[in-house]
């Protein structure tokens, strides 16, 4: 049992850290927020491809690196430290994993190499007009019409939809959900973003990232666009969402560590009443509580990834990880800002980039109540634990 990185992991971490340090500074982030119409940097995206990051977990036979989820966590943590904007999460993890899991041989051969090469961007069209994330909330419908499906509905928070080549759309093919626990009747479609009837509208957010409302107005797609089994998308999609949650938590934890490091440094440097403010026990308690939570969040994320790599059922761990990391990191952004005093709330101060992302990262991919329900299903509704 050890937490040491392998040589390859060390190399991955160092490369990512150096790249981020060089390419993803605050000026760059401000520029992406204020002046880019893409929300990320296409040049940087190509660099990601060149470094092999876009194939990190994808199978080697389709051009991927075939690396582990733990490796992914190591990479995403570095991206998160610098809150690097990119469509990696849903392109590589959500879509890449879904295609790898349940795509046909033709789909895999056709689609995965272009993900790895950085020539396809995917967006994930799942969330609808509900506060919740349960699959039962989906109402967007896909009706059979001859040898095609016609999709109608409205998807929200489709990140980078406007820049995506393909939308991974989860739609209802098997009739309405009976209750909140009903995850049946859903099918995944890979929809060309430029299909007739697809319109995107930017949803302005706290992070100033690129979230879109996407309307599907009788969008006709051939049967070949179906990914996985008709009416049974959730069985394939849930593991992909679990991987996405792990990657998201890794990113989030990275952001938390960076904010914490900046706040700690400031506590050492800032002198008031002839003492560095970090000498105050109150400040020490805040920073110690924060780092303790971050260590816990980080270890839980690595552990969950490691269990997933071993093919174990990680549903309960993913729930606990997402619930804890999300709340913890958001709280850490708040604590960090408090250490900076009034400055921590000025638009021009660098750490407000983190503050603005904290809550949004917490609520992405399902707010905490959803993941608590996942935990509850695992610990309460299942068999009792053997306490020996």
């Amino acid at each position, binding site marked *: 049992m050890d937490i040491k990185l392998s040589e390859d992991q060390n190399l991955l971490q160092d490369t990512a850290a150096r790249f981020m340090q060089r390419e993803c500074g605050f000026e760059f982030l401000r520029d992406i927020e204020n002046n880019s119409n893409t929300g990320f940097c296409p040049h940087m995206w190509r660099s990601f491809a060149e470094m092999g990051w876009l194939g990190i977990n994808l199978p080697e036979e389709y051009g991927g690196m075939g690396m582990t989820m733990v490796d992914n966590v190591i990479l995403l943590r570095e991206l998160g430290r610098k809150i690097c904007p990119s469509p990696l999460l849903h392109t590589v993890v959500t879509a890449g994993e879904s295609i790898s899991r349940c795509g046909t041989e033709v789909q895999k051969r056709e689609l995965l190499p272009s993900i790895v090469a950085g020539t396809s961007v995917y967006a994930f069209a799942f969330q609808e007009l509900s506060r919740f994330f349960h699959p039962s909330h989906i109402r967007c419908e896909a009706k059979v019409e001859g040898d095609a499906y016609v999709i109608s509905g409205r998807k929200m928070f489709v990140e980078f939809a406007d820049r995506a080549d393909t939308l991974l759309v989860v739609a209802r093919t098997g009739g309405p959900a009976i209750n909140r626990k009903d995850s049946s009747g859903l099918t995944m479609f890979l929809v060309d973003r430029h299909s007739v009837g697809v319109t995107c509208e930017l*949803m302005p957010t*706290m992070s*100033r990232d690129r979230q879109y*409302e996407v309307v599907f107005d009788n969008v006709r797609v051939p049967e070949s666009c179906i990914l996985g089994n008709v009416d049974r998308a959730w069985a394939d999609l849930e593991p992909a969402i679990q991987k996405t949650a792990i990657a998201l938590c890794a990113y989030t934890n990275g952001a938390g560590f960076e904010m914490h490091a900046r706040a700690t440094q400031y506590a050492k440097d800032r002198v008031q009443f002839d003492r560095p403010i970090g000498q105050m026990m109150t400040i020490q308690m805040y920073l110690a509580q924060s780092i303790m939570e971050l260590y816990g969040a980080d270890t839980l994320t690595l552990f969950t990834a490691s269990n997933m790599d071993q093919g174990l059922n990680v549903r309960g761990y993913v729930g606990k990880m997402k619930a804890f990391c999300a709340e913890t990191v958001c709280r850490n952004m708040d604590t960090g800002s408090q250490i900076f*005093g009034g400055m921590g709330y000025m*638009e021009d101060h660098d750490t407000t980039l983190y503050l603005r992302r904290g809550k949004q990262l917490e*609520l992405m991919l399902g707010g905490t109540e959803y993941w608590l329900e996942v935990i509850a299903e695992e610990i309460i509704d299942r068999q009792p634990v053997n306490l020996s």
Partner: protein
Amino acid sequence: MNFEWSEAEKAYRSEVVAFLEEHVTEEVRGSWLVDTPARIEFVSKMAAKGWLGQGFPEKYGGTPSTTPFAQYILNVELDRFNAPIVGKNVGTIARTILHVGSESLKLDFLPKIFNNEGQWALTYSEPSAGTDLGNISTFAENKGDHLEVNGMKHYITSAHFCDWYWMVVKTSHELPKHKNLSLIIVDANSPGISIAPMYCVGTTTAERTNQVFFDRVKVPNSRIVGELNQGFYYMMQAIDYERFAIIAAAQHNRRFHKILEYFKEVDFAGERPLTDDPVSRSQMARLASRVEVGNMLERLCMCIAAERVPSVEASMNKAWGAMMHDETCSLAENILGPYGCLAKGSPYAALQGYIMEEYLMAGHGRIAAGGVDTAKTIIARRLLGLPNSFAPPVLSAR
């Protein structure tokens, strides 16, 4: 024991409410933090009622006040109407001038303040002097008949529309810390002053504050408030004048109820957060009891204010209010899920982005004007009599 206003106070309050119902327009409501023509006009109307100078001597433009609570009653109602309260101009500046200013400053400035002629900016904070004002380095050099001011101030909220800076400067290189500061009044249009805006996070339009640069700015000696090098002590005394600062609960109440009403109405694809979700319902109920406690702490301040300056109770009230700001917004965000992150401009944004913007600024509230931990330190020291944390050991080591 009596938690209600007397008949005279009720009558005064009715007068205030009637006035506010007539004059608080949408524009006035929106000017709570920023200056606008509507705001100036509104405050001038209050001035015309004689409400700004209540309790001050008539020779300086003051008016007799009908009850010791007149100022609170006015501010509580202003706050309830989301209109700008009577704040620093009267509570800090006018009182300090009255207590320590020269006769000419009194005659010159007090009537202006009570008539709402001109705006003021409190000009204290500097990059290295935040909570520790002893660190101030902006210097005013003695040039015979005037001072020459050089330096920089920040977080000066009213700088972009003020007429005068109410400013603390260092006036001696030799005297020890805290004995080398002076209060001065600086004309905003003096040559050598320049300003640069600073915006609060997430609110690029309304919530502005400023950096102010002073480059060889001349200030006549007559604009020194009280004695030279006594500024720090005047500022400390002013904290005890700031009875207006005990008004804190109405904002937090308004925020909570505004969000509560929103949750009663909003309908996410047929789900109503508070009636369909027992968890949110229970969380909002618990928060309601905590927000109510804020009202109680404010009421306690007012009860005590008739007897003495409620400085400890005001610290509690402010700290609690700041905690409620945070708790209310965090809970609202969590209940909203991803929809909580939408900004003004999205048709799906909760209360047109209000909740999100309030959420982002919630932390600032815990810091601004002292912060929760500072308030607790005041409580620990003044009320509980606990010793200064940085005092030397009581027993010699051995």
